[in-house]
C-alpha cells in the first residue's frame, strides 16, 4: 500500500502497563520495595496489534470493557507510547478523548475556546476565523461571556465538543462521546460527523453504541483481550460481536 494513502499505521504494537499495587514514590518506600519486588504487576493490554487505516476511512473499534480500545486510541494520539512496535500517523490529528480537558472554570466560554483550541495546536488567527462557527455550533451564544463554572454539565460538553470538532483536523479520534448533550444536540453531532465523513476525513471511533457504528462506519475492528479478533465490513463484524456478547 502506498504510504500517502495511509492515515494511521499500527505495526506490531505491544503495550503493557505496570500496575502498582502500592506505588513507591519516596526513597524510604523504594528501599523497602527493594526487598519485596513482587508488589508490581504487569498487565498486557495490547498484544501484537497490526492495523492500517486509509485516508478517508471511518473505522469503529469495538469490544468489551478492558479489551484495549481506549489504550489503542491513546497510543494513536501519542499520549502514551508502545512498549514495542510503532505507530505512525500522517496528517493533522485531533483526539476527542476527554472533552474539556484544560478548560478553566473561572474564565469565560470565549476565553476557554481560545485556550482549548490552542492546546489543539491552532494559532490565534485560525481560532479567530473559527470562533463564530464554534459558538454557533455550541448554541451557547447567550452564555459565551459567562465563566464556564456557571455552565451546566451539558453546556460544558457542548462547548468542548464544538471546539474539538471545529479544529479541522484530517484525522479524528473519538472516544465514546456520541452521548453528548440532549437528543437534539446528539443528532447535530451525528450530522456533523456525516459531514466530516463526506469531506474525506479519517475517523476512528470507540463506542458501544452499535447503531451509531453501523450507521457511520465503513469498517469495524473488534478487539478482544488485546488482540484483533475480527477486522472487516461493519455489519459483518458487528453481527458477530453481538452474537458472542449476547
Amino acid at each position: 500500500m502506498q504510504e500517502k494513502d495511509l492515515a494511521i499505521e499500527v505495526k506490531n504494537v505491544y503495550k503493557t502497563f505496570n500496575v502498582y499495587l502500592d506505588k513507591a514514590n519516596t526513597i524510604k518506600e523504594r528501599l523497602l520495595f527493594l526487598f519485596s519486588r513482587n508488589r508490581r504487576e504487569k498487565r498486557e493490554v495490547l498484544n501484537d496489534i497490526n492495523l492500517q487505516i486509509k485516508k478517508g476511512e471511518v473505522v469503529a473499534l469495538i469490544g468489551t470493557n478492558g479489551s484495549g480500545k481506549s489504550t489503542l486510541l491513546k497510543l494513536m494520539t501519542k499520549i502514551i507510547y508502545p512498549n514495542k512496535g510503532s505507530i505512525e500517523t500522517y496528517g493533522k490529528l485531533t483526539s476527542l478523548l476527554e472533552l474539556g480537558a484544560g478548560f478553566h472554570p473561572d474564565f469565560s466560554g470565549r476565553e476557554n475556546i481560545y485556550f482549548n483550541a490552542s492546546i489543539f495546536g491552532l494559532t490565534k488567527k485560525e481560532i479567530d476565523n473559527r470562533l463564530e462557527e464554534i459558538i454557533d455550533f455550541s448554541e451557547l451564544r447567550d452564555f459565551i461571556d459567562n465563566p464556564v463554572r456557571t455552565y451546566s454539565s451539558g453546556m460544558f460538553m457542548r462547548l468542548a465538543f464544538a471546539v474539538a470538532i471545529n479544529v479541522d483536523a484530517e484525522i479524528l479520534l473519538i472516544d465514546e462521546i456520541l452521548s453528548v448533550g440532549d437528543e437534539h444536540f446528539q443528532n447535530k453531532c451525528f450530522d456533523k460527523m456525516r459531514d466530516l465523513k463526506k469531506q474525506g476525513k479519517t475517523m476512528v471511533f470507540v463506542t458501544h453504541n452499535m447503531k451509531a457504528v453501523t450507521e457511520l462506519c465503513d469498517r469495524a475492528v473488534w478487539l478482544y483481550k488485546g488482540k484483533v479478533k475480527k477486522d472487516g465490513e461493519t455489519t459483518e463484524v458487528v453481527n458477530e460481536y453481538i452474537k458472542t456478547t449476547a
Partner: protein
Amino acid sequence: MKKNFFKRLYEYRELLKTNVKKDVRGKYKKSFFGFLWSFLNPLLQITVYAIVFPLILKNTQENYVIFLCTGLIPWTFFSITISRAAGCMIENGNILKKVYFPREIIPISLVTAEAFNFIISTIIILGFVIFGGLGITKYVIFYPIILIVQYLLVLALSFIISAVTVYFRDLQHFISVGLQLLFYGTPIVYSGETIPEAFKWIININPMSYIISAFRDIFYNQQMPDLISLGKLAIILIFACIVGYLIFNKLQKRFAEEL
C-alpha cells in the same frame, strides 16, 4: 515523520503564548495588592537582608543595598523557577493525561513567564541604582545577553527537574533544601572575593555566580562584564539545554502513565 523541536514549538506558539500570559497575569489575580506584589516581595526581602547582614556580619560593602539587590533579584528568578519546575508536571497532570500537545511547552512556558517576572523586577534594581546615586551607565546594554545566559541555565535545569520529578517525587524536597544551600554557595549577600581560598571552588563551579557577577558588573561596579566567561558559559549551557531536552524527551513518553 518526526518533526523537529523548533517546528513543533512554532506550530504550538499560541499555546505557549496563552500559557505564559496566564502565568504572568494569573499570579496575583486574586490578591488585594495584585501586581504590586511583584515589587513588594523582593523589596521586603532586600530590606530584611540589608538590615541583617551589615549589622550582624559587619559587612563593609559599599552601597550594600544595591550590591544586594543585583544579586538577590537574579537569584529569585533562578530559585523560583527551579522550585516551580519540580512541581509543574504534577500540577498539569490532569491535562497531560488527556490531551496531546508537545510536553516541553510546559517547562518552556514556565521559564519564559518567570523571565518576564524577572524583567519586571529589574525595575527595582534600576530604581535603587538611579536613586541610590550610582546612576545608569552604557554597560546596561549587556543586560539582555546576561538574561539569555541565565534563561538557558534555568531552562536546561527545568527540563531535567520537571521530567525526573514525575518518576521520583522526592526530588521536590531535595530541590528546596538544595536551593537553600546554594543560596549561601552563591555570592549574593557577600562578595565572591571575600571567600577563603579553600571554598573558592564552590563559587567557581556554580554557574549562578558568573551570572550574578555579570549583573553586578553592569549595575553595581559599572564596568564591562566578563564576556569571555559568559561566552564559555553560554556554550556549555546550550549544550546542557540539548542534553536536558533529550532527557526530557526520553522521560516524557511515560508521563501519562506515571502521573
